[in-house]
C-alpha cells in the first residue's frame, strides 16, 4: 500500500452503501465519498500538480472531507485553515504554504473572499468542483506517479518567532500508524466515531483515517455544540457513538458542564484523549457515568503523526497523581535523552522525549533551519542514519517502564488544547507601535495567559491590536503595563519576579 486513497477505494468496493461520514445535515456513503473525491480531484487535476499544496478555508463537514481527499486524488496535499483566525495570520499561512488552489464552501465564501483580498488568490467553491465530471485517465496518471513519501497534509501550529510553523506529514507515516492504532484499540466496522477535533488539528487524522481503514462510520460534531452541552449529548446519544478520540479540553467540557447529568451516551465503548495532561478529577466523572468504557491516554506531537505512546487505564487516579503516557505504539521507538545527549534508562531520571520510526513527519514546510533543529540524527547511533524527532517535552520512566510526562523544555505551552509558543504572542505584541518589551507567562493552574509589557501604548489599545494579530485563543486573558522588566543577574527577563506581580 502506498496511498491513503487505497483505503477509501477498497471500502467503496467492499461496502459501497455503508455510511462513511455524516455531519449535522448531510451524509456520504463510502461510494458517494469516493465519487465526490474523484470529481473534485478531476477538477483540480489540471490546476494542482504533484506535491502542490491546496488550502481549504472552511469548517469541517462531509463535503470538506471529500475536498481533502479530492486534493489527494489530484496529487497534492491539503492544509485546512482555521476560519477563526485573523486575516494577518491567514496571510502568513498562505505565504508559507503557497497553495496551487484555495477551496471554500458556500457558507464561507464571503469570509474567504475577505481573507483572500490582496493575496492574489481566489477561492474555488467546493460545490462546483464536486459537480465536475470524473477524468479517470488523469487520476490514474497522478496515482501512477505518486510515491508514499509524498506529503499528505500540512498542519500549522504556533511558532516562537511569530510565524506559524507548517508540520508536513507523508502518506507513509499515516499508512504506518493508522492500522496499528485501529488494531491496538479494536476499532472496527461496527464503530461509530464521533469526531470532535477540527480538521486543522492532527487529532482528526485518527478519526478520518480510522474510519477509512477500519470501514467505520464518522459523525462530525459541529464546533458550536461544544458550547451547548445539551446539543452535544443529544448528538452523541442519537448518533449512537461508540468511539471518542478527543482533546482533553473537549472531554473536560462534558464533565465540567454536567453533560452526563442531562443525558448519558451509553453506546460509548472507547474514550481516547490527548493534547494535554488529563485532570484525574474530570476523568473520574467520565469513569463514573461510563464505567464499562475503555479509557486511553495518548501522547505525541503532530511531528510524529498523531501519537507515539499510549496507556490504557486500569484504575481510577487520585487528583495528585499523573496518568502515565505509557508505552510506545508498535513500530515506534521512544527514547529519553539527558544532559549531553546521553540515553536515560533509570526510572525517575528526566530526559527529553525523542521519537524515531516511520512515524516521523517530513519537517516544517519551507523551513530547513527549524526542521534541522528538531529532526536530528539519533546522537546515540554513530553507525547509520537514524533520524529522531526531539519533542521538546521532558519525561521520565516509572518503575513499570511507562513513560511519564514531566514538563516542557522551552516556553511552549498547551492552552485549551492549542499548542502555543509564548514567544509567538510576545513577537506579535512587540511588533505593535508603542510597545518596547514584552513577556508572556502562562498560569497553568488557572489556565490564564498573562502579558506584561513596557511601552507608551495604552492597555486597551494593545488588546485591540492583539485581536487583529492573533487567534482568539492566543490573546492574553490579562495584560499589565509595567515601568521596566525585572531582570535576573544574567540580564534575562526574570519570569519568576513577573509571576509574583
Amino acid at each position: 500500500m502506498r496511498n491513503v486513497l487505497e483505503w477509501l477505494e477498497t471500502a467503496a468496493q467492499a461496502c459501497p452503501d455503508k455510511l462513511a461520514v455524516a455531519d449535522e445535515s448531510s451524509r456520504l456513503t463510502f461510494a458517494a465519498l469516493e465519487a465526490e473525491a474523484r470529481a473534485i480531484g478531476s477538477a483540480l487535476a489540471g490546476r494542482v500538480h504533484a506535491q502542490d499544496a491546496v488550502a481549504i478555508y472552511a469548517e469541517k463537514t462531509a463535503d470538506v472531507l471529500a475536498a481533502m481527499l479530492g486534493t489527494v486524488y489530484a496529487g497534492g496535499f491539503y492544509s485546512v485553515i482555521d476560519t477563526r483566525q485573523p486575516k494577518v495570520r491567514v496571510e502568513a499561512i498562505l505565504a508559507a504554504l503557497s497553495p496551487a488552489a484555495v477551496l471554500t464552501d458556500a457558507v464561507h465564501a464571503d469570509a474567504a473572499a475577505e481573507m483572500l483580498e490582496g493575496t492574489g488568490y481566489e477561492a474555488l467553491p467546493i460545490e462546483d468542483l464536486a459537480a465536475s465530471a470524473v477524468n479517470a485517465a488523469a487520476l490514474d496518471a497522478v496515482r501512477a506517479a505518486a510515491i508514499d513519501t509524498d506529503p499528505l497534509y500540512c498542519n500549522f501550529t504556533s511558532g516562537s518567532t511569530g510565524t506559524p510553523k507548517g508540520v508536513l506529514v507523508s502518506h507513509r507515516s499515516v499508512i504506518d500508524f493508522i492500522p496499528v492504532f485501529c488494531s491496538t484499540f479494536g476499532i472496527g466496522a461496527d464503530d461509530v466515531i464521533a469526531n470532535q477535533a477540527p480538521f486543522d488539528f492532527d487529532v482528526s487524522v485518527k478519526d478520518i483515517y480510522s474510519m477509512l481503514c477500519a470501514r467505520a462510520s464518522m459523525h462530525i460534531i459541529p464546533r458550536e455544540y461544544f458550547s451547548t452541552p445539551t446539543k452535544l449529548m443529544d448528538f452523541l446519544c442519537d448518533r449512537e457513538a461508540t468511539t471518542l478520540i478527543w482533546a482533553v479540553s473537549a472531554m473536560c467540557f462534558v464533565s465540567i458542564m454536567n453533560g452526563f447529568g442531562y443525558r448519558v451516551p451509553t453506546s460509548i465503548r472507547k474514550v481516547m484523549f490527548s493534547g494535554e495532561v488529563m485532570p484525574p478529577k474530570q476523568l473520574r466523572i467520565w469513569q463514573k457515568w461510563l464505567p464499562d468504557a475503555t479509557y486511553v491516554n495518548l501522547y505525541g506531537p503532530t511531528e510524529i503523526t498523531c501519537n507515539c505512546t499510549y496507556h490504557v487505564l486500569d484504575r481510577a487516579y487520585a487528583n495528585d497523581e499523573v496518568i502515565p503516557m505509557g508505552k510506545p505504539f508498535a513500530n515506534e521507538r521512544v527514547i529519553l535523552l539527558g544532559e549531553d545527549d546521553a540515553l536515560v534508562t533509570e526510572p525517575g531520571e528526566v530526559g527529553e522525549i525523542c521519537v524515531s520510526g516511520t512515524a516521523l513527519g517530513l519537517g516544517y514546510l519551507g523551513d530547513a533551519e527549524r526542521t534541522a533543529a528538531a529532526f536530528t540524527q539519533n546522537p546515540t547511533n554513530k553507525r547509520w542514519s537514524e533520524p529522531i524527532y526531539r519533542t521538546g517535552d521532558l519525561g521520565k520512566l516509572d518503575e513499570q517502564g511507562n513513560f511519564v510526562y514531566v514538563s516542557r523544555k522551552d516556553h511552549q505551552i498547551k492552552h485549551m488544547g492549542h499548542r502555543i509558543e509564548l514567544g509567538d504572542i510576545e513577537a506579535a505584541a512587540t511588533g505593535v507601535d508603542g510597545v518596547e518589551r514584552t513577556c508572556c507567562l502562562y498560569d497553568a493552574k488557572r489556565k490564564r495567559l498573562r502579558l506584561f509589557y513596557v511601552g507608551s501604548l495604552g492597555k486597551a489599545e494593545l488588546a485591540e491590536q492583539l485581536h487583529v494579530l492573533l487567534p482568539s485563543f492566543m490573546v492574553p486573558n490579562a495584560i499589565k503595563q509595567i515601568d521596566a522588566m525585572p531582570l535576573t543577574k544574567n540580564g534575562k527577563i526574570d519570569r519568576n519576579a513577573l509571576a509574583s506581580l
Partner: protein
Amino acid sequence: MDTTLEEFIELLQDIKEDVDFENCTTLIDDHVLDSFDILSIISTLNDEFDISIPAAEIVPENFNSAVALLDMVTRLLDEE
C-alpha cells in the same frame, strides 16, 4: 446572595479582561466568548459560588450578558 453586579463583573473580567461585560448583551450571539471562555466561566462560577451549573442551563440566554449570568447564579443558589 450579597455579590453586587460590579463585583460579579470583576470576577468575569479576571477571566477575560478585554470584554465589555458591563454593556455587552450578545456575548454568545456575537461570538465574543468562545467555548473555552464559557468553560472558564463555568469553572470559576462553580468554584466561587459552590454551585454546579446543570447542562440545561448552559444556553445562550444565560450567557449573553453579565446580568443574565448573575441572574442564573442567584436562581441556582435560591433553589438549593
